[in-house]
């Protein structure tokens, strides 16, 4: 399991949060999605065998939120 951390443009409505949360949780290989509303960050654990961090950023991007930066943390 790797962890993708995305920094988004400011989120302003709580429903944006639900949208991102819902959309990412539906992706295969993704577990434990956390959207930090105030920090405008998304953290998601994903299985590298199934999907990639770039694919997840693409999903968020398609919802209409630009991903400013994307970091991947490998498990230690």
């Amino acid at each position: 399991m790797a962890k993708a951390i995305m920094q988004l443009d400011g989120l302003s409505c709580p429903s944006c949060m639900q949208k991102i949360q819902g959309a990412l949780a539906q992706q295969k290989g993704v577990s434990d999605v956390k959207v930090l509303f105030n920090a405008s960050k998304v953290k998601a654990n994903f299985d590298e065998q199934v999907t990639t961090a770039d694919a997840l950023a693409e999903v968020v991007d398609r919802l209409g939120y630009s991903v400013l930066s994307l970091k991947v943390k490998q498990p230690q």
Partner: protein
Amino acid sequence: MMKFERYIQQHTNQLTLATGLLIILGFISQFSGIGILKTISFIVASLLAATPIVIRAYEALRVKVISIELLVSIAVIGAFVIGEFDESAIVTFLFLFGSFLEEKTLAKTRHSIKALTEMAPTTAAVLQADGTTVETDVDDVEVGDHVLVKTGAQVPVDGVIASGDGYLNESSVTGEAKLVHKGAAAEVFSGTILDNGTLQIEATKVGDDTTFAKIIELVEEAQDTKSTAEKFIDRFATYYTPAVLVIALIVGLISRDFKLAITVLVLGCPGALVIGAPVSNVAGIGNGAKNGVLIKGGEVVDTFAKVDTLVFDKTGTLTEGKTAVTAVENEAADPQRVLALVAKVESASDHPLARAVVAYVDQQQIAFQQLTVTASNTIKGQGIAAIVDQQHVLVGNEKLLAAHHVTLNDTQKATLHQQQQAGSSTVIVAVEQQVQLIMGIADVIRPEVKGALAALKRQGIQHLVMLTGDNALTAQDVADQLGIEEVHANLLPEEKVEQVKALQAQGRKVAFIGDGINDSPSIATADIGIAMGGGTDVAVETSDIVLMRSSFGELRHAYGLAKKTVANLRENIILAIGTVVFLLIGLVFGYIYMASGMFVHEASILVVIFNAMRLIRFHTK
């Protein structure tokens, strides 16, 4: 299609502006009697403003979320269909403009965190084998790499100084604004600024593992850790929005009044209620972060506001944690000379009492280095007998004096007893068989504590407790000086936990304040664990609240802030519910229609945000 959506999302603000202008044009045409221009203006405005709202509603629906946008979309389309173009234009415009203002004002409440993250270093100058440096992203620096930091630059990693020295501004990590001088082998932290000097640092922690990165992560997570009240509102909102849809449908079916049904949709938007509670917490926690108080989430704010009992660890929390001379009983004709003799004798010793004495004499600016010691004999468990400048000097306890046939008179004995009663260790000094000084040495109470405890009581704390591993005599003395009601001494860390549990069993809400390392079990057991001693990992991780500067001013601020934030949150919930009630009454009596309903709705959202913004400037008096 995708591109179109993106374009609309990115140009929502321009759309809002265009809609606003068209609405103004519409009203002008209305008053000048050009009916057709008015209708066209409102139709175009409705279409423009509705587009981004409908897109958002659709996107949410795709992930099975019934959003506020959906309610507004249905209402607006409904109004459009029955030809109420002015209503649909104004409602959509107000909705977009409201969102725009919310975004701007929310950014203000989040500013403290943003400022913190922007302080994080981004690149490091990593030294290569050939002596050159390469600018590297902080995430790509490896542990063990050497990085070069020059005057004015930020330390990019946690590490130890390999070579060089300089003055560092560590306020981003410790909250302390004073410059500190650090040289080889000293620890330095990422995010601190080298004010002067050049350092070569060996990285021990990099990227997200640095103390600074952890502080940022903590605050970020804290702002989104919801309190029970918030979670309830969230759950409520999830069902509330679909419920409004159903209610509108029922109202429409029963009354056969289409306009009434779509009005219900607009009025039912759960705006202020959803935003009211989180915005208070965000502003409150942000204020804390700015003032050296890290509060881990809304739940902590909520619980801390209810705390009525403060339990303190003594050493290092109420006291400085280092011994110092606190009392000097002088019988010497020339005390300066005697102090110089004592300091000379003690300066050769590593004993904590000896060090306290030397520090005291240093503080008095008495020179003693020029004296010569011709003989010095340390007697274990007694003290030192020495010959300094041809004078016989005894520094130690009663046993040492007895062994050298020096006796104390009754007054001296009384003084000794009194100092021991006060919990001090005592050092007696005799020169040429005459008792000259009796010094009391104790752990010093931090000067600001007494006033701060009294102030905390005024703020609403009912009971103060001190737990310590120290002896009962010392403990009682410190407690008496500070006005602490309950004292338990001679405790092991696990016995402190028992005491905390006992207080909780009495029905008290307990906050434990300790230095974060040996007190970790108590910090975890108490309702609220507060760590003094910023910058250490253990403190940051085990506690609910971290006081970065370890000061009692911060403790008072934290408590005041928690109470204020909870009060603010309540005000916001009352405002939000009040608005809904007001709108419903207005609707029943026919004063409120779609556009005015949307106006009140958006206004209430701004009111709760502005109310929360008052917290940003909160100060503890």
